[in-house]
Every structure is written in structure tokens, then in C-alpha cells.
């Protein structure tokens, strides 16, 4: 198929950036979206132009590196799919496709479609862990049985890939879904229990400091999340946060 690509080009953080138009030809339905971008880049290199910079690594939907805003939607038109797992059969001959980076003050653009998501790392550093050292003396893994239902829920929350699509698709650029996924995972497990209050408070605090917006429960994040992280996690985090705030005051 033949496509017209309208791609955001921005030389660096200081550059203003603009949409530029590129035609591509010979695109096959079995190609992934990123393979289509490879074709474009190969053409640009041959013509002596600079290829479009974009983040990617695993191309399997698990590393969370790829991050394109396609036709106004984070990771494109399909639900539950990352950009790298989106295939060109979702488009048809003659289509025009708009490709932009994540947009959020907390995710500044580095170049073209590449943004800086280190704010997510700092949120995890503020409390997204269990404080246990590697000693080789931890108790036997089966000493504490965990109800299957909670274990499964914790797992579902833990499948967040940290891509940032939730932020990109939220009109407030809130990071609630991401933060709540980690808070929930650890709140659902006995190992996370001792620090659950400080964790909720610290992570929410860090999220605010990073400049992410407030959550107004529009639910757009969960619709666009490629791992289908549930809004239940946000509700759980709100409870965790409230409980922690109350006990802090009393």
C-alpha cells in the first residue's frame, strides 16, 4: 500500500518542531508499524536526509520503549496493543497517518518522537519497592501462602510496562494509572504491607513534584493502556492514599 505520513520533527528540546509530510510506498500488511518506519528511514538515509528518531527495543510489546501518538491516539487505533505490535493491516491503501510524540510537560521531547520519561523512574525510586536486602537468608518462598485471587490481581497490576501512554492520552497528563499499578501490586501482597502507607504517600508526592496533572476520572488512560491496566487500581490507590493521610494526621 501507499501511505502519506505526517510526522512530528523536532531537532532537540529547544527546537519548536513541526509536522512534515512523507510519502511511503510498498508497505505490506504483515509489516509492523515500526517496520514501516524502518522503510521510511531507509529511504531518508538514501536521500541523504536525517531519519526520524523514535524509541524502540524489544518490538514485542513488553519493554515499554516504543511510544508513538498515532492519529490522535497513544499507540494507535487498536486496543491493548503497543506501537511495535501494531501491524499495517490496521491501515488501508491511501491512508494519511499522523505520528507525534507523547505530549506532557513531565515528558519533554528529546528529538522527533523520542521523549524523556525519567520522571517515571524517579516515582519508582520514591517508594515503588519492598525494602529487603539480598542476603540469601530470606524466608522460604512458600512460607507465606498468598491467596490466588490477590496474587493474580497483583500480577495484573504488575504487568504495566511503564510506557507512558496513560499520561499521553490523559487531558490532564496525569500519571495515576502508572502509579496506582505499582501501589496496588505491592498493597495486594503481604510483602508490601509494612511500607504501604509511606509508599502511597511518597509516590503520590513525587508524581505531583514531577509536574503530572490531577486525575479527574475520565478513564481515557485505561482505554489506551496497551496492557489494559484496570481503573480499579486507581480506586485502590485512592483508598491507600486516604488511609495513609489520615493515619499520618492522627
Amino acid at each position, binding site marked *: 500500500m501507499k501511505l502519506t505520513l505526517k510526522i512530528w520533527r523536532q531537532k*532537540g528540546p529547544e527546537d519548536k518542531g513541526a509536522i512534515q509530510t512523507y510519502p511511503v510506498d510498498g508497505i505490506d500488511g*504483515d*509489516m*509492523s508499524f*515500526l*517496520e514501516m518506519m*524502518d*522503510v521510511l528511514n*531507509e529511504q531518508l*538515509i*538514501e536521500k541523504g*536526509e*536525517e*531519519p526520524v*528518531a523514535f524509541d524502540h*527495543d*524489544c*518490538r514485542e*510489546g*513488553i*519493554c*515499554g*520503549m516504543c511510544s508513538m501518538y498515532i492519529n490522535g491516539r497513544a499507540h494507535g487505533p487498536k486496543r*491493548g*496493543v503497543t506501537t511495535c505490535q501494531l*501491524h499495517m*493491516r490496521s491501515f488501508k491503501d491511501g491512508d494519511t497517518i499522523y505520528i507525534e510524540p507523547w505530549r506532557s510537560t513531565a515528558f519533554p521531547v*528529546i*528529538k522527533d518522537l*523520542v521523549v524523556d*520519561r*525519567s520522571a*517515571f*523512574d524517579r516515582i*519508582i*525510586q*520514591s517508594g*515503588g*519497592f519492598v525494602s*529487603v536486602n*539480598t542476603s*540469601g537468608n*530470606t524466608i*522460604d*518462598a*512458600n512460607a*507465606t*501462602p498468598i*491467596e*490466588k485471587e490477590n*496474587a*493474580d490481581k497483583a*500480577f495484573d497490576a*504488575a*504487568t504495566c*510496562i*511503564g510506557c507512558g501512554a496513560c499520561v499521553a492520552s490523559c487531558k490532564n497528563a496525569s500519571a495515576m494509572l502508572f502509579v496506582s499499578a505499582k501501589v496496588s501490586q*505491592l498493597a495486594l*501482597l503481604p*510483602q508490601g504491607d509494612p511500607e504501604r502507607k509511606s509508599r502511597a504517600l511518597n509516590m503520590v508526592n513525587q508524581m505531583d513534584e514531577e509536574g503530572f496533572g490531577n486525575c479527574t476520572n475520565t478513564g481515557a488512560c485505561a482505554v489506551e493502556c496497551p496492557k489494559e491496566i484496570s481503573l480499579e487500581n486507581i480506586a485502590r490507590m485512592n483508598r491507600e492514599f486516604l488511609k495513609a493521610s489520615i493515619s499520618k494526621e492522627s
Partner: protein
Amino acid sequence: MASLKSVTPKGALKDQWTNHKNDINLVNPANKRLIDVIVIGTGLAGSSAAASLAEMGYNVKAFCFQDSPRRAHSIAAQGGINAAKNYQNDGDSTFRLFYDTIKGGDYRSRESNTYRLAEVSANIIDQCVAQGVPFARDYGGLLDNRSFGGVLVSRTFYAKGQTGQQLLLGAYSALSRQIAKGKVTMYNRHEMMDVVTVEGKARGIIARNLITGKLERHGAHAVVLCSGGYGNVFFLSTNAMGSNVSAAWKAHRRGAYFANPCYTQIHPTCIPVSGEHQSKLTLMSESLRNDGRIWVPKKKEDCQAIINKTKKAEDISEEDRDYYLERRYPSFGNLVPRDVASRAAKERCDAGFGVNSTGNAVFLDFASAIERYGNLEANVKNIKNPSPQQIKDMGREVVKSKYGNLFDMYKQITDDDPYFTAMKIYPAVHYTMGGLWVDYNLMTNVEGLYACGEANFSDHGANRLGASALMQGLADGYFVLPYTIGDYLSKDIRTGAIDTTSEAFSQAEQSVKERIEKLINNNGTKSVDHFHKRLGKVMWDKVGMARNEKGLKEAIAEITEIREDFWANVKVPGEVNGFNPELDKAGRVADFLELGELFAKDALDRKESCGGHFREEYQTKEGEALRDDKNYAYVAAWQYNEVPSKAKLHKEELTFKEVELKTRSYK
């Protein structure tokens, strides 16, 4: 250059690690604060090592090329992690895990290292659970297990098809905690460009900030490489796009021996190549072989009908199917080790029984598992006389709970629904057993330079068993290196901070700079990928699943030619000072072009078949690998030469005290 001393502790295998830990020199806590360690890589090996070293009190600097440590290639591991817990009470033990690993590796690994790996395996699971890793559990709330290839017990712990993700996020959380404490300084989007040695000791690195393009000098008392494997030398592999050999290769250029480069694992169950545009291949986890049955039609006309789409897998009757693994290997069936399963698939496809248009695909079929699970569910749920449809529906639900994400991924990529029709799969490059040579302490032959995880050669011999790479990465990083490195660092408590203004650092930086400038100013006509694809094709055709003398000699000549062409005609767009992924890629492909040649040389030199290394000249009448223990029971450790095929060979003889060398049989 030092000779190859494995420094294996004395005494019986089972006492070696305990004795060694007792004998190791310790660094007192106050002195640890005076010592800096650099860790390259934040996969399972690197994150766990960096976190543990920081907990112990060392100052750690960690580097990764991705935008966050959480995105290392380990994140993509699917099926599971082994540990000798014997929770299933099926007779598992440290010795059995050790034995399976040695045998699975076709008797080409070092007994002492492999035993230690089995010994610390149980601790890994305890540690991960304590961190909040949500492994799969049964209804009683206890940890569940599955089986992997090449073994007769169920010792694999898992988290759906996302085990690597969950383990890495566990290690990443431990690392994050140390970053918050200021004990680890994290350098994201940084690439190690060279190791700096001072008086024969590794004393730091030259790194490149991938956003600004600036070169940086970092000094340390020891450097630990956890930079992963080199499967991408084949261009198409299941590795992440950025996985590379460069860090290990730079170490090799600085004197570290590269061991057994030709031991590469071709994984039997991957989604077949679909066209020219393909940029990578996708694994379908080995865990699927617990429930999926592998087959091709018995009749070529059926194969043709499937290719022409006039028939589907489900239209072929039972008696017209050849479950060739079950036929050839009745005792292990679909769960033979990877090398065996891959060759068997190739054999059928070469004989003309492939089931897709390229002729390179076989079926992996879940129909009978769906039926079996459906019936079990009907019993559990007490449904009398369930309809066939009900059975299938319930069966599909069970299969979904076990492998849901893998099935989704398959559908996404192929547009076929594996809940309703058999998957098509074919072998693909997946893992590299070879890597930097290390001693028992995981130190390379360059003092103070260590290698962990897939980057080193230890533990897996000529073939790795499924679910053992995650185990090794975490064993190295959490439980082995943090101890063994103390022995070396204890001599460095009075050294003081490493001076990065020294001549050695200047020279290293200068040579990195020149190389980058050469690439960018080359003004050629062909893209980096052009060369990478050509290299990949030579590797796959001549140094892939089956190798022979003639092909290997041709490969060496062809790779040399591609390398020369690369340096003459490569075109790297953009600038040195700025974000430039093409430039990053160019440097990595340049190193692959050297490694590929050494790889072929190693394969040429090893005149036997063992594990993943199959030489057509050395096989039994039934087409099984034919080892030559008399002449080749050694580790091939290569010393760098500018012409890689002229590298100098050093041999570490392998001696086996606890296991008897046998012909591997899974019949």
C-alpha cells in the same frame, strides 16, 4: 597475559562454594565506601549486581543504553526460571538440577560453576518473592511450577508468559531503592565505548551520552560487564533490537578472552519469517511445549494443500500427522532440549514437509490440550455430559490463563488465532552460550574486569536449558559476584579514587573519538542495516543450525569482505554531538562484523558436534550430534587479533569428577 586459571576451590563439589565464601577476603564496611564499582547493563544480571553491591556499601555507577534500567532485554523473557526447590515432590534436588544442566549443555561446561548455580537457585526464588514478584500460584496459595525441555521434573517458576518482566521489575525495584539512597548513580541512555586498563587492571570506562553525544570518563576499582548476549550478529533473532556484543567486544580488544563464540542457541519455537521487511523474530515460549504438540503432515500433498490454503491443520486426520518429536524421542517427546527440537524441525522442513510458503514452518498444536483441560474442568466443575463445544470453551479458558499473552502476541503478528488453529513455528537464533571467559569468581583474564549473565560463557556449556538464563543472571548478580568481587577489592582499600586524567584514559577516549568520526565522516552510500542484513544472511546460511568446513571457510572470507565494504561504503547520517541512533547502530554492527568472523573460526576449529554446535561431518547414523570428548572436552578461549580468524586459541581443559561423560540421549 595471564593463563587460564579457573581458580576452582578445592574439595568436593558440594562443599566448594561454602568453603570458598569462608576463605574470601572481606572488605570492612568503612572501606567499602572508598571503593567504586562500574556495572554495565541493567538486565537481570546487572540490576541485581548493582543493587546488591550498593546494599553492601560499595559506590556503584550503573549504565544502560535504554531510557530506563527497567527496559533491558531481560524484560522480554517469557517462560520461567528454574530452581531446585522440589516443591512438587518429584525428586528434584541440587544435584539433579546440576546434572541436568551439565547434560543439557552436552558436557561442555565447568562442573564447579554449574554446581554452584544449582546450589543458589532456591535462594533466588525466596529473594524474588520477598521483593514482591507475583509468581503464579495455585489455589492453595503456594507457588506453581511448570516443566521445561530436557528434564523430567517440574521446577520452573513462572508469571504467565512474562516471567522476565516480573523478575526484572523486582531487580529494578531493588536498584531503584539504592538509587534513591544515592548508593547507585544511574546513567541511562549511555553506551560503554571502551574499557580502560591501567597497569593491566580494569580501572574504568569511556562512555558516550547518547543524548548529547559527549564522551565521558568514569573511573572505578572494578568493572562488571552485564551487557547481555550477541545473538543479533545474525541480524534476525529473538533479541531486542539494541542487544549487542560491543561492550564484551571492547573488553576482548583490551585483552579479555572470548570463549566458545560458536555455541549459539537456535530456539525451536519462534514465529517464522514472513518477508523481506522483517526486523526481528518473536519467540513463542518453550513453556508452550508443555501443552502444544509439534507435527507436520505425513504426506507432501497435504503440506502443499496447506500452503495453497485449500486445507487447514485441523483438516488433516490423526493418522496422516507425523508427531516427529514423539516418534523420534518417545521418552522426552515434545520436551527434548532446544538444540534437538530445532534440528528435528529443520530435518522435516529440508525433507519437504514444511507448512508455509517458505517451506520453513511446522505446527505447534493445542487442540488436544484444549480437549484435555476442558474435560478436567468439566470434572472439577461437576458438569455431567458436557457438549464438545462446552469442553472446548472451558479448555480454551485454561489455556488462556496459562499462555494468554503469548497467544495474543501470535495473533497480533500473524493474524491467525491459535485458540482455533495450530500455530506455525520455526527455529530462530535466541541465546548465546559463548561469551567472555571468566574464572570461578566471574573475573575475566583481565584483572578487575568481571562478566555476569549472558555476557559470560560459564554454566551452560554448548546448550542452555530453558528457564536457566534467568536463573544464571540472578545467581551471578545477587549471590555470586557480590561475594567474589570482595576478594579482589580487598586489595584496593588504599588505592583511592581512580584518576581519570591519566594517559590511559586520554588514549582510550581519543581512540573512541577517532572511530566515531571515521564512521560519521565516511560519506558512503549504504545504510548500516544493509551491512547488518548481509552479515546476518552469511551467519544463518553458513554458521547457523548446521555447519560444515566448506561453508565455514566461505563464511570467514565473506564476512571479511563485508567488513571491508562496511568501512569503505557505510553511510551514517546526522551528527556526532546529538541524539543519533544510526551512529549507535553503526558502532555495534562494526563490532558484529568482527565477532562474526571469530564465531565462524571457532565453529571451524571445533571438529565435533555438541549441543547447539552441529557440524554435518560429525553425526551419528540417526543424525544425532557426535561429540569427541577425547579431543574437544575443552573451553576454547580466544585472544584478540585484528584479523579475528587469526585469533590465538587458549584451551581450558574440562575435567569431570561427579558426572560421567555419556552420549546424550533423550530417546
